[in-house]
C-alpha cells in the first residue's frame, strides 16, 4: 500500500459500520452508553455489549459539516450563554433537533458515563444530558495528574469506581461482567496503541510523512471511536505501512517542508480546511501536536494492559493530555520541540475549552522568554464559527512565518 487509499477506505468502512450500529435496526437491542473521548472506558462498556456514543466527536463532525453554528444558536435560545463551551451547545442543539447528526439519527443514552478526565465541563455537560434525557449518570471521577507518576491512592480510587461502574453496566445491559473478555478487548487496544505510537514517531523524519496536527486528527479517529476492536488494529497496521512508504519516498503533506511546527490546542473545526491552508502556504508541517493526545498519551508509554485490566484503564484515564498539570504539559511541549526537531510552537487558543487554554499564555511566556523557542499564539474556537476571524488570523500567521524566514535568512 503506497497511495494511502487502503487505510482511508478501511477507516471509512469502519466508521460507517459504527454509525450503522447506532441506528434503530443496527442496535439490535444493545444498550447505549454516552462517554467522552479523554479517558474513556470503552473497553469496559464493550464487555456489556453496550454501544458507545461520543458527543464530542458528534460535535466536531457537526463543526466540519458546517452544522455547528445553527445548533449552537438553538442551545443559546434555550438559555445557554454565549460564553460557555460550543461543544456542549452543539450537543444540546443536536438533542433539540431530534439528534439528527451528519451520520444519521443518534440514539438516546441508556447510560451517561461521565469519564471526567481533564475537563470539568464534562460534568456540567452530562448533568445537563441527564436532566434533559432523564438518563442515569455515572460520574467517573478521575483525579488530576499532579506528578509524572499517578499516586496509588488516585489509581485505587478509580479502580474502585470502575468496579462500581461495571455493576451499573451489568444491571442496565443484563450482560454479566466477563473479566476474560475485558482482557481480550484490552489486548486489542494495546496493539492498536503500539502501532499508533510507531505512526506518530514517523514524523521525526525530514520531511515528515504526514502532518501530525491537521492529518493526525483524522488518523486518531479510529483509536478514539473503535478502540478494543480488530478493525481498529488493522487500520493502524495499514496506516503505519503507508506512512513508512511515504517516509521512504520522502513524501510529505506539503510540497517542500520549510517549517516544522509543534501545535498546541484543538483546531477550529468549522474552518478546518481554511485554517490549514494558512499554514500550508508557508510550507508548514505539524510534526507533533498535543491535541492528538487528548484521547491518550500513548506515546508517553501509557498503554492499556491486559495484565492489569482496571489499573491500566485507571492510569490511561489519568494520562490524557488535559488531565496533566501545566508543568507536565509544558515539559511535553519542550520535549516535542526537541525530539521532533521543530522550528516553532503554534498555540491555537480556543474560548470554548478553558481546560486547554488557561495556561497557554503562560506557556508562551516560558517558551519565548526562557527557552528562546519562537511561539505564535492565535485565538478562535473549536466549535463556534462566530469566533473565527480569517483576516486577523492570516495577518498574525503571515507575520510570524515571515519573521521566521527572515531570521533564517540572517542565519539566526
Amino acid at each position, binding site marked *: 500500500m503506497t497511495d494511502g487509499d487502503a487505510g482511508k477506505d478501511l477507516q471509512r468502512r469502519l466508521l460507517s459500520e459504527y454509525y450503522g450500529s447506532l441506528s434503530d435496526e443496527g442496535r439490535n437491542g444493545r444498550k447505549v452508553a454516552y462517554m467522552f473521548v479523554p479517558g474513556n472506558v470503552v473497553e469496559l462498556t464493550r464487555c456489556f455489549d453496550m454501544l458507545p456514543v461520543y458527543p464530542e466527536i458528534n460535535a466536531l463532525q457537526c463543526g466540519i459539516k458546517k452544522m455547528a453554528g445553527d445548533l449552537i444558536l438553538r442551545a443559546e435560545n434555550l438559555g445557554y450563554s454565549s460564553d460557555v463551551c460550543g461543544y456542549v451547545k452543539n450537543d444540546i442543539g443536536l438533542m433539540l433537533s431530534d439528534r439528527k447528526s451528519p451520520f444519521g439519527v443518534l440514539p438516546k443514552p441508556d447510560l451517561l458515563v461521565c469519564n471526567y478526565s481533564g475537563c*470539568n465541563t464534562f460534568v456540567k455537560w452530562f448533568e*445537563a444530558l441527564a*436532566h434533559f434525557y432523564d438518563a442515569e449518570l455515572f460520574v*467517573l*471521577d478521575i483525579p488530576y495528574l499532579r506528578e509524572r507518576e499517578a499516586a496509588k*491512592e488516585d489509581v485505587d480510587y478509580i479502580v474502585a469506581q470502575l468496579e462500581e461502574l461495571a455493576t451499573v453496566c451489568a444491571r442496565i445491559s443484563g450482560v454479566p461482567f466477563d473479566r476474560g473478555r475485558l482482557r481480550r478487548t484490552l489486548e486489542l487496544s494495546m496493539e492498536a496503541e503500539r502501532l499508533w505510537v510507531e505512526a506518530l514517531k514517523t514524523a521525526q523524519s525530514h520531511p515528515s510523512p504526514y502532518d501530525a496536527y491537521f492529518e493526525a486528527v483524522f488518523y486518531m479517529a479510529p483509536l478514539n471511536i473503535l478502540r478494543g476492536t480488530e478493525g481498529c488494529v488493522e487500520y493502524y497496521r495499514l496506516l503505519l505501512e503507508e506512512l513508512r512508504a511515504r517516509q521512504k519516498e520522502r513524501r510529505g503533506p506539503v510540497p517542500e517542508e520549510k517549517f516544522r511546527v509543534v501545535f498546541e490546542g484543538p483546531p477550529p473545526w468549522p474552518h478546518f480546511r481554511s485554517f490549514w491552508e494558512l499554514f500550508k502556504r508557508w510550507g508548514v508541517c505539524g510534526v507533533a501536536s498535543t491535541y492528538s493526545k487528548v484521547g491518550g498519551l500513548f506515546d508517553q508509554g501509557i498503554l492499556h494492559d491486559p495484565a492489569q485490566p482496571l489499573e491500566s484503564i485507571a492510569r490511561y484515564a489519568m494520562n490524557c493530555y488535559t488531565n496533566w*498539570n501545566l508543568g507536565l504539559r509544558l515539559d511535553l511541549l519542550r520535549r516535542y520541540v526537541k525530539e521532533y526537531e521543530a522550528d516553532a510552537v503554534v498555540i491555537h487558543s480556543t474560548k470554548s475549552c478553558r*481546560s486547554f487554554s*488557561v495556561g497557554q499564555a*503562560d506557556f508562551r511566556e516560558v517558551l519565548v522568554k526562557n527557552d528562546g523557542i519562537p511561539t505564535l499564539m492565535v485565538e478562535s474556537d473549536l466549535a463556534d464559527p462566530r469566533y473565527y476571524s480569517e483576516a486577523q488570523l492570516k495577518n498574525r500567521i503571515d507575520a510570524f512565518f515571515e519573521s521566521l524566514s527572515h531570521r533564517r535568512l540572517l542565519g539566526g
Partner: protein
Amino acid sequence: MAFARESVADTSLSAVRTWKEGHPAGKAIGAFPVYVPTELIQAVGALPVWLFGAGGSIDISHADSRIQSFVCSISRSTLELGLTARLGTLDGFVFPSICDVARNLSGVWSRNFPETFVEFLHLPQNRDSASAVPYAIAEYRRLLNGLSRLTGRPASEADLRAAIESHNANRRAAQDLLAVRRETPWLLDAWESYLLLRAGATMDRDAHTQFLRNAVAAARRRGRKEKDRLRVVLLGAFCEQPPIDLIRAIEEAGCYVLEDDLLLGLRWFREPIPADGDPLRALAEAYVTQSPASSVSHYRGRRKQDDLPASIRAIGATGVVFCTAKFCEPALYDQVLYKERLEAAGIPYVHIEFEEKMSVFETVRTQVETFVESILFE
C-alpha cells in the same frame, strides 16, 4: 460594619500582616474559593486566608499576558494581586477542584511563584461512590502533610479536633447571622451580612466567631420596620464575588434576599462536624455526605435542580435572582437547568450577569425593579 467594610476593601492583606506580627512563627495560607477544608490549615497553626479576587480595585496588566481575556475576572485579578506582590504575606496557596480555570490557575501559580507552596486539592466528584470517603481522606492527608512540612509543625489529632470545633462554632455563628436575615430580613440587609461574613476571610476563626455573635445581637436590637418587598433567593455559584453595590442595588430595587450562596465555602456545612472520632475521616465524610448543592461539586443522589422549587417555597421566597459572573461556566450551565425547573414550578426569576469591574448599577436596578413590580402588582 465599618471594620468589615475596611477589611473587605483592603487587598493588601494588612489584617494578615497584623496577625503574623502577633504570631511570629505563624504562616498564612491562601485558599481559593469555593470550598477548602481550612481546618487543616488552622490545625498546623497557620492562618487560612480566603482569596476573593480584587473586586475591580486594581487594573489588570501583568495577568493579561498569562491569562486570556475570555476567562473570569477572579482568576485574572487574583493572579494580578500575586504578580504585583500584594499577596506577599501569604506563605502558601490551595486551589480546590471547582472548575478548569481554578485548576489551571494552580499551575500558572506554581510556574510564576516557584518558591511558594502551591497545592491543588482534588475534592471527590463522585460522591455516590463507596471509595469517595477513603479518597478524600487520602487527599486531606496529602494536603496536611504538605502544610506540616511548610510550617514545621505536624498536626496532632487534638489540633485537628480543636480546628474542627473552632470551625463548627464559626459556621454556627454564620448560620445564626443568616437566620436573622431569613426570618427578619428588614433587620439585616444582604450586603451587610455579606460584609460581616467576608471579614472572616482574613481573620482568626475564633475572633471572627465572636465578631459574628456580636453582629447577630446588634442586628436583633435594631428597630427597623418591615417594608413591602419581594422575598427572593440570590443564586450565583459565587466563586467570583459580585460588587457590594450590586447586592445593594438588588435590595434597593425592592427585594429582601432571604437566602444566597455567597461565601458558601465559609459556611459549607450546616451541621457540626463530629470532633470526637478520627478527624480526617470526619472532615471527609462531612464533605461527601453533607456538602450543600453547589455548581462546583457534582450532586449526590438527587439532582440538585429538582430540589430547588421546594427549597425556595420552604423559606417563603417568591422568586429567584440569578447573578452569574461573566465567563463562569459552572454557574452558567446550572442556571439553564434551574430555570427549567423554576418555570415548571411557576416560580419567577431574573438573571443578571456581573464582572468584578462593574461599577454602574442603574441597569440592574431597573431590571430588578421591573421584575419586582411585575410580581408585586400582578
